Every structure is written in C-alpha cells, then in structure tokens.
C-alpha cells in the first residue's frame, strides 16, 4: 500500500522539485501533501495520517528545527519520521536536528537516488 509523505518548504519551486524527485526515486507514494512552514506542517499532521515528513530547515514563521521541537512534544505525531532536506547541512545544524528527532538529512542539490537511499530504510 502506498505511503503518504509531507513536504515542508517555503519555496513552491522546491516543493515541486522534491515531489518530482520522489516520483523518480521509485518509492510507492499514494499521496504527497505539502506545507509551507513548520506551523502549517503541524496542522497537516493533525488532520492526516502521514508516514514520513521531508522538511526544509530555513523557513519563515516556524523553522524546521522549531517544527521538530513542537512535533516531539506532541504524543500523537512524535513518532512520524522526519528527514531534513536543506542547503543547511553543516554538522552543527544536523546534530541539532538529530537531537530533536530527525532521522536523516538530504543536502540540496540532491538526486532521486539520494532521496531513495535516505527514505527507503525509514519506510
């Protein structure tokens, strides 16, 4: 049965590019949901059954790290895996994200193969 993924990025362009990469990666997704910042992502998670989240870090309103913190404090959604997908992939930032529960990180620019390698073990 196909999985549901949530893409969180303030750039409409990047949400389209990530969606395209997911389809090209060959992972069986039945539904791709979108949110433009961390708060919107929390709202989507509250209303939908989501199997995995791909989130940018540097976003207005609520950043990716703030989203991870808020998600970890919500028992209903804290176990949904999150992979960061960002230009911000310095060791310090990734360590912060992992300490807040992120399961991995994909650096922009990325390829569908890299998406597949990172998401595959989590699904």
């Amino acid at each position, binding site marked *: 049965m196909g999985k549901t993924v949530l893409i969180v990025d*303030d750039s409409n362009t990047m949400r*389209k590019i990530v969606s395209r990469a997911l389809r090209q990666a060959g992972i069986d997704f039945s539904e791709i949901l979108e949110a433009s910042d961390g708060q919107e992502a929390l709202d989507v998670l509250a209303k939908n059954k989501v199997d995995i989240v791909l989130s940018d870090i540097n976003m207005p309103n609520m950043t990716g790290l703030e989203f991870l913190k808020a998600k970890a404090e919500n028992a209903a959604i804290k176990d949904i895996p999150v992979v960061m997908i960002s*230009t911000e992939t310095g060791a310090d*930032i990734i360590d912060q994200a992992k300490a807040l529960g992120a399961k991995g990180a994909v650096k922009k620019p*990325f390829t569908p193969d890299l998406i597949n390698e990172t998401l595959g073990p989590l699904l």
Partner: protein
Amino acid sequence: MDHAANISEATCEIFSSMVMLDVSPKEARQRTNPAFVKSISGIVGLAGRVKGNLSIHLPADVATAVTTAFLGMDVAEINEDVCDAIGELANMLAGAVKTALDPAGSDIKLSMPSTVYGDEYSLDCAHCGISVLVPFELDGQEFSVELLLAET
C-alpha cells in the same frame, strides 16, 4: 580560498542535477557593468563571521528558460514562479558557499532568498571589498553568479 572555483563547481552541480541543464563556467572577473538590463537577480545574505551576499544574475529570457527546465512547465515571462525558482537557485548556491566557508555550519547565517527584477537596476553591497563574479554560458547566452564579501 578559491571562491571562483567553489562558485563554478556548485553552479555546475546544481544546474546539472536539479535544473537538468549543462552550463559552462568562464573566467572569473569583477563586475564591470553598472546596471542590469531586463534581468532578474536572486540574492541571499550572509551574516556572522563572514558578511556579504551571494547573487545570481540572469537576463529575463535566460531566467524564463531556466525556470521552464527547473519546474518542467512553460514559462514565458517573469512571474511568481520565476522569482521563486531564481530565489531557490540563489539559496542553494549560498548554501554551497557557506559550506565551503563554514563547514560546521554555525558561524555563518543565511538570509531568506530575495529577488529583484526590472528593465534597469543596480545592486551594491556596502563595505564589501571582495568581489568575485563568475560568468556562465547556457545555450549561447550568459548569466553570472557573484559573491560579495566584507573584508575581515
């Protein structure tokens, strides 16, 4: 640090892997034109241990062709999609420059990307003494990626 080599490598990688277009770097130089004409620029600021900005400058017709390839949809003129796409290219380029300047990632902060476009405009960076502009060729046309840094 060889900023021009970093810019060339990052730009070629981003265009080949994300935009699906091959671009060819030319020799780096300082910007000579005082104004951009019928163009669009995507800009990301750098703050912290290093201050300045990273920008990508494209003539309008190159920007629409790049956006068409990037998004896989026909774009005929500069609109919201083009601004978002060019801003995201600037964001990825700035991320690559930041990684080179600050591998751990905590000493330099990136701004949200912004875009400027119009029939004629100029851009400057106050107190930026280091300027590296790398031109690129794409299907016989040219665009450029520029790094402006304050001297520390």
